């Protein structure tokens, strides 16, 4: 009793911070731990204690309470392990008889229990040892909290006695300890300890209890703890896994009127019915280890025994085989089904465990007056996909969110951008990349799960032409050697509204001819590719414009060809150089080998030397002069990036195709191209894509032309550009109008995402498939429905709008 109670109030200031605040947790189900679940229930917490639990409709909640709606989540009590070796890592003292040892002295309050807590376990029994006859006194502690007094639930909890096999033949004690000895203190013969057999152990225990009883009231540090079971009704926790252990202990218990907690009882020679009134609880070893395969492991946990004990009215707690399994306590309790019902299985790690440990007044059940230790699960406790979402100890959340770099997003529908629309599917995101998409997706234990039940997830939108990102408009020409990607400003005012509209990748360039950069409008913009294309124009007087375009391309091609040639010749040269070097080396070696003979036949050698032919060293290819202004053309002519050509009318379109596709064989994407629908067939044939202007639906004479619709019908790939600053946020709406006027929604969506990415050869964005950047938009309903709102936007796995 004197343990731990003295340094109370040390950190009560921490608790006082929470004082007075009422929190309400509203969940789909609340399992109180000792009975069937309540559906649509609330848990009311104040100052680290539960003040009410019940159906949402029946519990009165103070006006000022802070409400947490947990949706489909399920609340269960914080789990309790019936026995662990967390004190001193279960290391046993050499001495076999140490009833004055206290496990609470060996428990590390500052240890790292995050993994165990994340498994929902909040309270554990700590055992003073498991391989000596009387290793000491156990305790019950919580795994989290600043106030160590509040964390000490019970100390001492029990006096531990270990029977079975483990206690037998403890190490001999050397006195003094083996090591340096002095003359005055020689090493003595080692002392045997108790006990070698059950008979000796029981006899020893009996005489110890007698001695403890008779010495009262005189005090003795070792014997006093042995008197506690008789004077204070302290439980005696007996590991009785050996045959004959239980009957032997029952006799001792009867003699001294002890209350027992049996650990792993061996039923041979005894009947459960005979245990009362001395046995008040049982701790069963789970036996199996989660996910482990081993010849020594039993196939099933002792569920039948648990059933038998529950029928007999004895509370049962569980003990994992190793402390490492603590984090899986809930899973392991689930293994006791079907012999036990779900409610009964949960009892083993909550209400019953608390009863066995004698701490039921504090933890184990969710009821008014108990500590607010509870676990929020994503679903019913033993369902397969259920995960621990949050753990509360004394009302304080334990798991710090946002640590994990993995997220799982679930939504009503997911458009992957590959033509698939998956219903009730999920996306797994790992370190900013999409790892998996589908109806059934792996759920890593550390992943943060987010549910959007009625929402639609689509790929992030791509705007193929904007004017923001460098702090002002780019009206004057930008030299080709300028890398716009390096000039992007941090925190341009347009970034936020644009990405809030769902646009996650944009293209920026100066007036043609210019290099185009693709970047993501995060606060610190991230360049996707620079340059991603070269932009040209065919406008005004077409004959002069085409001449100038040709001239530009020719100069570029000459430069690119020179480099191509050089790069082609370089490996050949290197090959030759290698051969040449090998030849020289071989000659030298030959010369050296013959060096010994040189003296014998000096003159003859000299003649030979003259005859030796020196091979001609190969000539390196001429390296072209690097010109940063022309450098982007190398990518253009090697078809790594496309040429974006601004055109309007049909003649310009044809001209652009003639020059770029036929003459120079470039990857061509037309920009603008109002007349594109007229030459749809040609465009499709030549695999020329189109970037459409803001005005997608035009009135032409009496007709109305829905450009994207016409192009999609002709099989021409297209994307969209806003050519605007802030206006970029209206792009999805503009496409929505085109959809309203007849464009297939999927084509519109693809034009905003996958098609646009393909036109530019951007292979990291545009679809929701494994390996791509996690750029996505969560919509409240079908894309392009005017009622649909953007709920959230993610760029590279981070929410940029929620």
């Amino acid at each position: 009793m004197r343990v731990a109670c003295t340094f109370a109030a040390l950190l009560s200031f921490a608790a006082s911070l929470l004082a007075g605040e009422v929190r309400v947790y509203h969940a789909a189900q609340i399992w109180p731990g000792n009975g069937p679940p309540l559906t649509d229930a609330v848990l009311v917490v104040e100052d680290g204690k539960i003040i009410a639990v019940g159906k949402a409709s029946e519990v009165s909640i103070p006006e000022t309470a802070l409400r947490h709606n947990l949706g489909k989540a399920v609340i269960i009590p914080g789990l309790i392990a019936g026995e662990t070796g967390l004190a001193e890592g279960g290391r046993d003292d050499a001495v076999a008889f140490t009833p004055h040892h206290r496990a609470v002295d060996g428990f590390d309050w500052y240890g790292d229990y995050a993994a165990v807590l994340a498994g929902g376990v909040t309270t554990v029994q700590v055992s003073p040892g498991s391989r000596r006859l009387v290793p000491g006194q156990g305790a019950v502690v919580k795994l989290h909290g600043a106030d160590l007094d509040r964390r000490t639930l019970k100390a001492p909890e029990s006096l531990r006695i270990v029977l079975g096999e483990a206690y037998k033949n403890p190490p001999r004690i050397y006195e003094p300890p083996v090591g340096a000895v002095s003359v005055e203190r020689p090493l003595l013969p080692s002392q045997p300890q108790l006990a070698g057999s059950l008979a000796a152990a029981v006899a020893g225990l009996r005489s110890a209890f007698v001695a403890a009883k008779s010495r009262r009231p005189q005090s003795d540090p070792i014997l006093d703890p042995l008197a506690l079971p008789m004077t204070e009704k302290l439980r005696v926790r007996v590991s009785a896994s050996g045959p004959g252990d239980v009957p032997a202990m029952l006799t001792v218990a009867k003699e001294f009127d002890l209350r027992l907690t049996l650990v792993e009882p061996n039923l041979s020679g005894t009947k459960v019915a005979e245990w009362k009134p001395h046995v008040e609880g049982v701790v069963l070893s789970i036996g199996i280890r989660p996910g482990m395969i081993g010849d020594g492991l039993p196939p099933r946990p002792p569920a039948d025994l648990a059933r038998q004990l529950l029928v007999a009215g004895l509370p049962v707690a569980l003990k994992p085989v190793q402390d490492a399994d603590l984090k899986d306590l809930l899973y392991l309790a689930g293994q006791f089904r079907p012999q036990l019902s779900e409610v009964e299985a949960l009892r083993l790690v909550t209400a019953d465990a608390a009863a066995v440990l004698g701490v039921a007044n504090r933890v184990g059940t969710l009821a008014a007056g108990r500590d607010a230790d509870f676990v929020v699960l994503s679903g019913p406790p033993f369902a397969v996909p259920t995960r621990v979402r949050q753990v509360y100890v004394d009302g304080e959340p334990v798991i710090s969110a946002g640590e994990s770099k993995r997220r799982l997003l679930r939504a009503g529908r997911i458009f992957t951008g590959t033509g698939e629309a998956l219903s009730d599917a999920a996306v797994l995101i790992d370190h900013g990349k999409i790892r998996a998409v589908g109806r059934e997706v792996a759920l890593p234990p550390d992943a943060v799960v987010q549910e959007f039940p009625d929402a639609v997830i689509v790929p992030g939108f791509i705007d193929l032409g904007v004017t923001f990102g460098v702090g002002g408009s780019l009206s004057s020409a930008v030299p080709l050697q300028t890398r716009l990607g390096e000039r992007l400003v941090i925190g341009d005012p347009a970034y936020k509204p644009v990405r809030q509209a769902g646009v996650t990748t944009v293209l920026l360039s100066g007036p043609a001819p210019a290099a185009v950069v693709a970047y993501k409008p995060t606060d610190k913009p991230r360049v996707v590719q620079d340059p991603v294309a070269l932009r040209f124009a065919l406008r005004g007087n077409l004959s002069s414009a085409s001449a100038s375009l040709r001239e530009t391309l020719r100069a570029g091609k000459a430069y690119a060809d020179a480099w191509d040639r050089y790069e082609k010749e370089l490996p050949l040269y290197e090959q030759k150089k290698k051969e040449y070097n090998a030849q020289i080396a071989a000659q030298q070696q030959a010369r050296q080998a013959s060096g010994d003979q040189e003296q014998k036949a000096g003159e003859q050698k000299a003649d030979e030397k003259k005859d030796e032919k020196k091979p001609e060293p190969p000539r390196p290819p001429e390296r072209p002069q690097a010109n940063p202004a022309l450098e982007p053309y190398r990518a253009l002519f090697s078809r790594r990036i496309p040429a974006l050509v601004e055109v309007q009318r049909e003649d310009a379109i044809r001209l652009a195709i003639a020059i770029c596709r036929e003459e120079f064989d470039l990857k061509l994407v037309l920009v603008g191209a109002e007349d594109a629908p007229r030459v749809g067939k040609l465009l499709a044939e030549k695999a020329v894509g189109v970037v459409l202007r803001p005005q997608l639906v035009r009135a032409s004479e009496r007709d109305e032309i829905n450009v994207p619709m016409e192009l999609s019908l002709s099989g021409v790939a297209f994307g969209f550009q806003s050519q605007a600053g802030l206006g970029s946020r209206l792009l999805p709406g503009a496409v929505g109008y085109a959809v309203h006027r007849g464009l297939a929604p999927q084509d519109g969506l693809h034009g905003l995402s996958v098609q646009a990415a393909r036109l530019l050869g951007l292979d990291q964005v545009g679809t929701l498939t494994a390996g791509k950047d996690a750029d996505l938009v969560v919509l409240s309903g079908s894309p392009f429905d005017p009622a649909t709102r953007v709920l959230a936007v993610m760029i590279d796995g981070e929410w940029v709008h929620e």
Partner: protein
Amino acid sequence: MRCHSFVVLLVLTSLSGAWGEEVLAIKGGKILPVSGPPIESGVVVIRNGKIEAVGKDLAIPPDARVLDATGKVVMPGLIEVHSSRGMDQTNETNPIVPFLSVVDAIDPSQDYFEECRRQGITTAAIVPGNNTIFGGQAAIVRTAGQFLNEMLLKRDIGMKISLRPTGDRNRMGQVAAIRRELDAAREAMTERSRTSQAQPQPTPDAKGGNGSGPGPLAESDDEDTQQRRPRPGGGDQAGQETNPDAALVRAALAKLLKGEQIAFIYCELPMDVPQAVRLVKEYKLRGVLVLAPACHRAVKQVAASGLPVVLEPTLVLWESDPRTGEEKQIVLPKLYRDAGVPVTFTVTPTQPAGAGRGSGSQPPILGTNFLWFQAATALKYGTPYDEALRSITLRPAEVLGIADSRGSLEPGKAADVVILSGDPLKLDTWVETTIIDGRVVYERHNDRKIKALLKPDAE
């Protein structure tokens, strides 16, 4: 053998007046009295080993020997609140030896004391190491003197209680052993007061005075009855009552329980801190926490306990998060200061558990082995200057209960003065002169080791 002569001399001498010159005046320097604001070009007058006056424009007595400290800094001698050096070995081999005294183990000729004077440390509390359950009696010494009696300021000031497991114990066993001894001692106390039987009480002083032998080992013929393991069933511990050493242990621990002595409680891990606090409260000890670096995780408990704190040499450490692998720098002086815990420093390197022998007096290298460096580290990480200076002068004196006579430059206090070439917390500052009780015990221009070290053509 050497120790033997010390013991004899200890018995012979009880003079203190022999210590110190008549009158000494230090003038012209910048005085940092620690107890008050700095005085530019002030004067310190020392008479008969005590400070007579500190101030500006003081008349210098005509008979004074004048030390010109113009351009220099004058401050009180530094105090190491907890040192396990200067003894023939840091730790006693046997775990429960509260009746032994470090006085019997101090070797005045050790380099440690010379190094102290070179660094301006004038007073040190010699406390046994951390590898025993109850180490021997600690003592406060001056760091100068040819013989122990010249050095000794105060003996039996306290003892070490180590929460780091010793021998083959685990932590439970360690705490259980500490409790057992304290319980037994307490019981003996109450027993004695109840029966009011005036038992002759063997004291460590008596033992020391007997000159019982060359070292602590001589007294250890069989004192560890307490350590002898209990036998199950055989609960009869009557043997203890008749064992003279058990009585010695109890008598020694009784002083601790009465609050007459300081309990230097060594905490190795954060989990030891609540244990230490609990022991202090339960047994009403005068506790001082000696904290290993890892204990910073229990800083809240430390702060709430209000106990004085001694920090081990490592003040800046890096810890990596077990899950994210993120490296985080931990600066102990800042962390404790933020929690409102005033600290002092020990510069004795911690010995690994189980290391019994060894004097722990390896030559210091630059860094955490210097007391001033610890204060400078605190200063670097945000501790105010006055506070940093106090943590190596006045505060240790307060912790040790000698603040009435040492720790600052105030009239009436012992004249432990250091003259430095500049700011005491700067790397390029030298201790020019160290004065203990009015006697000059170190002068840099006479320091042959430094000279040899700094000789330009030194090999």
